């Protein structure tokens, strides 16, 4: 989950729990959650499960792009991943709303949401990683 895995445990813990890291995780989380809430509230409540599906798939795509970018561009600021990955995208996407929606939807819609979410999100990550890598390696 972090780029500090080559360090000794105490040094790693110091880097991972630095106040700046915790601050950008919290700030990013609030921005991501507000973006998700804002987007989902654009849709009628009967369609909110599908809006959440869109949020999760778009967040997965952006996570793929981000992870390719932090690997391909080592000069990116150290807080890029905690802020955008753990904070913004982590706060934007949600697993608990997905499970609650699957449990609340009717049989066919529940099955569609249950299966479509992981399948499309995984495909989106792959597209994000490969697309970003192709662009960044040009």
């Amino acid at each position, binding site marked *: *989950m972090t780029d500090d895995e080559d360090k000794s445990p105490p040094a790693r813990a110091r880097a991972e729990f630095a106040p700046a890291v915790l601050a950008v995780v919290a700030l990013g989380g609030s921005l991501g*959650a507000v973006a998700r809430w804002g987007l989902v509230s654009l849709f009628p409540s009967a369609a909110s499960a599908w809006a959440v599906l869109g949020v999760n798939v778009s967040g997965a795509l952006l996570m793929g792009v981000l992870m390719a970018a932090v690997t391909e561009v080592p000069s990116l600021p150290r807080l890029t991943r905690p802020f955008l990955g753990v904070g913004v995208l982590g706060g934007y996407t949600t697993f608990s709303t997905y499970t609650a929606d699957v449990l609340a939807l009717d049989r066919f819609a529940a099955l569609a949401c249950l299966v479509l979410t992981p399948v499309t999100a995984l495909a989106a990550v792959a597209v994000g990683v490969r697309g970003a890598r192709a662009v960044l390696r040009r």
Partner: protein
Amino acid sequence: MTVLLVAFGGALGALLRYLVDRAVQYRFGSDFPWGTFTVNVTGSAVLGLLIGLAPGDGVMAFAATGLCGAFTTYSTLSYDAYRLAVEGTAVRSASYVVGTTVAGLLAGVIGLLAGSAF
């Protein structure tokens, strides 16, 4: 007002997810994302409980949309599943996704039943 509740819940949820994830990974350190598994399953239980309890709109905006929404994550789940498939095997990746989903749904049902019982 709602936007502030969502923002505050989201900040707290993301911070808690990070801390729980790091704590679990330190303890059970492996390439298997047990930390994300833990937050996603417990977050589903808590959201189920909240839905069962059916509190007011303000509590739901803070605790359900903000806190549980940001505590759990689908982007990291998807990326780890992709990483497990690329670096490991498709079976490992699929068992991570299916395992998290089944455990999350069960946790959600237990939370709902517990919340509705009150």
